[in-house]
């Protein structure tokens, strides 16, 4: 019975993927026909096809999950990414452990969003909808084509007793939620793009398309940002190199659409208010969508690590074709519609909110462009010169950090500058306080290490004297951390003063108490004050980055049990080594105590661990492992002996079999300092990772990092989410405006 259900599941899943493709294809065709022939019937059919395709996609995903849950190792995909011993949450998360499942998840998320789009616009936007449906359905059909032709998730092989299992590094809570979050972000930008394209096709290039999709854009942007932060958090706690961002192609891939998306969120405000920048906004939404697809492509194809793998990775050519068509098709459409996109107003002054937004847009797009260039440089150089040249993190930092600082500065300038035309007198008055605070912070930091900074100045000028621009730019980097803190202080001051000013005005006008005035101020202007909170979040994140990269400490030590290590303001005592055999690994856990060097108080117990996941296909290893597990009784001498024996067995087996019989993984131990007793250490991490443990003698070597302020990044991430949610919440004024515009539109084409 069970086996026939499993058969049916696989069959159903397989054909659901096919059915979804056919339906999505039909939705694309019917949408376009409905739009071109202005036919209600066709549009209706297209919309229903989207809903049906969503059903089939979800069904397919459910079938694959069911395959995982029932350990159906006939499925290649289940065999590769799961095993009988895998815990339930990881069996589900294994859905996005590999290529086919990731694509399936991607398209399922897109399908759900497309359905929400269809359902919320059943009676609205009748002119835009057929085309919007066509665009979204085309994207869906493309991914479903990949799933049908290139990467079938339900490919079958012989029944196997057990699966390979998920990579131990991926068995992590954060890794479970990171990819879906990121994917929601990537996928979400499809909807604003679809409406943008629909607006261009139907020549309804007013404000309706971006008003309808305002919250879509904001949601996608929030998810993408959160996904990026989750990814760096995972890298930080799991990968064990003490850092969180390496300008890795996969990281860059998610950063680029986020940057252009941020630019779009700002510049669209100018179009709302003045009817300017219509072409620019359309371009930004096209860019953001294409970068999202490109990001998915980078993540999935492995093209950067090797162009050769691109030729063999079969999804590459499909992606390139799709991207090419999407980008140049949209561009041609945009050019054809330039006549409809004329600006309704002009920039009135270079000292205005609009102008500051324009600057930030240039920088956002500029940074996205550099990141794109540097990330794809290996491909470009190989294509044009035959030699593959890669770009390391120092280049990324050298190019992007200065501009990121200017961007941070603008986050403080923008809010204080009036729309249209700011006067110098007012600017001086409004900025006096914040500038003073920023300067004070800068001087304070510089005076802490006068000699160091003076010599940095000297070195910079010396390098410039030798006409070595690169060296000069490198020397100048010494000033980035204090500058970051100074600019951050300035931005914080301006944003706080914005809250303060707004509250005071309300108190005066409505005769309200301070707290009520503040609450109403924020809840009546959610988007604006949500935005300010995001600005504060960015300041916090910048502080974390500056602190943890400029003042970090790193060292390697070798200890025996009982020995004490002194690093900075900490003492770490290596108490004892504990050996364990857990369900899928054996582990050597270093038990250590962390003390405050000043007064000797215990700060934390640490337990960094080195794990070996034995390859149980070796019978000798399997039986020894099962035996050790059976002995259970942790702490008993024979248990310890049997685990030590396992470590020895792996080593001897490796030299005999001439291959590795285990997958190592390492667990970091982190102690975050939140005590207000040590303000200088606030948000600092003591981060220790074992690099080598001898299970026989207990001798262990560690790499120790002290990462000051690093927790500000994660704290800033929470603030970012809070501010973004505030901006996404329904806003009465926005809703009325949208409803009014939609009603008129509906009346016009009823």
């Amino acid at each position, binding site marked *: 019975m069970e086996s026939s259900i499993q058969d049916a599941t696989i069959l159903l899943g397989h054909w659901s993927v096919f059915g979804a493709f056919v339906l999505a294809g039909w939705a694309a065709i019917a949408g376009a026909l409905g739009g071109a022939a202005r036919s209600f019937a066709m549009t209706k059919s297209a919309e229903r096809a989207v809903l049906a395709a969503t059903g089939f996609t979800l069904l397919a995903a459910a079938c694959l999950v069911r395959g995982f849950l029932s350990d159906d190792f006939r499925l290649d995909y289940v065999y590769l*990414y799961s095993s009988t011993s895998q815990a339930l949450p990881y069996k589900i998360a294994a859905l996005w452990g*590999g*290529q086919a499942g990731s694509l399936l998840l991607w398209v399922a998320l897109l399908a759900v969003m497309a359905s929400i789009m269809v359902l919320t616009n059943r009676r609205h936007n009748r002119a835009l909808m057929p085309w919007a449906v066509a665009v979204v359905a085309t994207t869906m059909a493309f991914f479903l084509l990949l799933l049908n032709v290139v990467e079938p998730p339900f490919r079958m092989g012989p029944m196997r007793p057990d699966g*390979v299992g*998920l*990579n131990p*590094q*991926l068995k992590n809570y954060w890794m479970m939620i*990171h990819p879906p979050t990121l994917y929601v972000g990537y996928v979400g930008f499809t909807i604003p793009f679809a409406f943008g394209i629909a607006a261009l096709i139907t020549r309804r290039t007013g404000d309706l398309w971006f008003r309808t999709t305002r919250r879509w854009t904001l949601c996608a942007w929030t998810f993408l940002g959160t996904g990026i932060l989750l*990814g760096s958090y*995972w*890298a930080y706690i799991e*990968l*064990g*190199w*003490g850092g969180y*961002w*390496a*300008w*890795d192609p*996969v*990281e860059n891939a998610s950063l680029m659409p986020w940057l252009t998306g941020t630019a779009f969120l700002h510049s669209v405000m100018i179009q709302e208010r003045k009817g300017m920048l219509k072409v620019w906004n359309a371009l930004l939404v096209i860019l953001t969508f294409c970068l999202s697809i490109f990001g998915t492509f980078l993540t999935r194809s*492995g093209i950067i*690590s*090797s162009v050769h793998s691109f030729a063999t990775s079969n999804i590459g050519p499909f992606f390139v074709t799709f991207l090419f068509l999407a980008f140049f098709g949209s561009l041609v459409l945009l050019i054809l519609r330039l006549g409809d996109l004329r600006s309704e107003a*002009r*920039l009135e002054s270079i000292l205005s909110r609009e*102008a500051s937004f324009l*600057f930030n847009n*240039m*920088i956002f797009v*500029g940074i996205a*462009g550099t990141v794109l260039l*540097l990330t794809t440089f290996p491909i470009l150089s190989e294509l044009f010169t035959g*030699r*593959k*040249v*890669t*770009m*390391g*993190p*120092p*280049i990324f930092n*050298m*190019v992007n950090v200065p501009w990121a600082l200017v961007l941070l500065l603008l986050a403080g300038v923008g809010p204080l500058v009036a729309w249209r035309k700011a006067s110098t007198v007012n600017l001086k008055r409004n900025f006096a306080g914040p500038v003073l605070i920023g300067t004070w912070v800068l001087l304070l930091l510089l005076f802490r290490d006068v000699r160091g900074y003076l010599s940095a100045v000297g070195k910079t000028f010396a390098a410039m004297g030798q006409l070595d*621009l*690169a060296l000069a*730019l*490198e020397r100048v980097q010494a000033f980035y951390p204090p500058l970051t803190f100074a600019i951050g202080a300035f931005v914080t001051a301006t944003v706080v003063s914005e809250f303060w000013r707004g509250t005071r005005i309300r108190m005066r006008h409505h005769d309200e108490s301070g707290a009520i005035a503040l609450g109403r101020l924020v809840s009546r202007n959610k988007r604006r004050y949500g935005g300010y909170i995001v600005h504060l979040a960015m300041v916090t994140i910048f502080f974390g980055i500056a602190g943890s990269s400029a003042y970090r400490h790193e060292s390697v030590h070798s200890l025996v049990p009982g020995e004490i290590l002194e690093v900075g303001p900490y003492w770490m005592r290596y108490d004892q080594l504990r050996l364990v055999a857990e369900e899928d690994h054996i582990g050597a856990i270093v038990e250590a105590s962390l003390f405050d060097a000043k007064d000797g108080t215990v700060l934390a117990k640490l337990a960094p661990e080195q794990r070996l996941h034995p390859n149980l296909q070796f019978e000798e290893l399997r039986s020894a492992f099962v035996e050790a597990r059976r002995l259970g009784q942790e702490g008993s001498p024979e248990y310890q002996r049997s685990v030590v024996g396992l470590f020895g067995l792996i080593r001897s087996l*490796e030299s005999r*079999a001439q*291959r*590795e019989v285990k997958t*190592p993984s*390492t667990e970091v131990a982190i102690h975050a300092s939140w005590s207000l007793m040590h303000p200088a250490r606030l948000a600092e991490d003591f981060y220790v*990772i074992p*690099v*080598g443990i*001898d299970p026989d003698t207990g001798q262990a*070597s560690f790499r120790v990092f002290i990462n000051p302020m690093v927790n500000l990044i994660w704290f800033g991430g929470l603030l970012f989410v809070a501010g973004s949610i505030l901006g996404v919440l329904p806003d009465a004024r926005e809703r009325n405006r949208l409803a009014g515009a939609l009603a008129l539109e509906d009346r016009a084409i009823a």
Partner: protein
Amino acid sequence: MDGRQTKFVLIGAGMLISMTVLIVAGMGRSGGFSYYLTVSEFLVDPRPADDRYRVNGKVVQGSIDRLPSGHDVRFAMSDGTRSLGVHYNGIIPDTFVDGADVVVQGHLGADGTFQAHTLLAKCPSKYESADGAEGAAAPY
């Protein structure tokens, strides 16, 4: 085009130029750009002192010799035609196992082994895009 627009175009052009300058300047620095080669390509013309080589290949089965310190490892990597002995000192990523795709950066030592200061490893067949699995490269 009026004065303000001209100003904007000028500022935009200025930004573009400065970004280009920064990129070009950045390429001159160590840790900046590097040639990405296969083992055979590298062995055709190895320049011992030059640090600007990233060599990629697969770890030869059974060649991994982890030294007791825990952060030293010797192994051989190959691209299917030729192989290269490597000595690496630093954090060994968990993904570094037999058959893994690796990229090493460093220079050719006097004894003919490649002295690597950076080791990036990608697990074979598991999770095609292990995010940031490029373990050792830690700018922060």
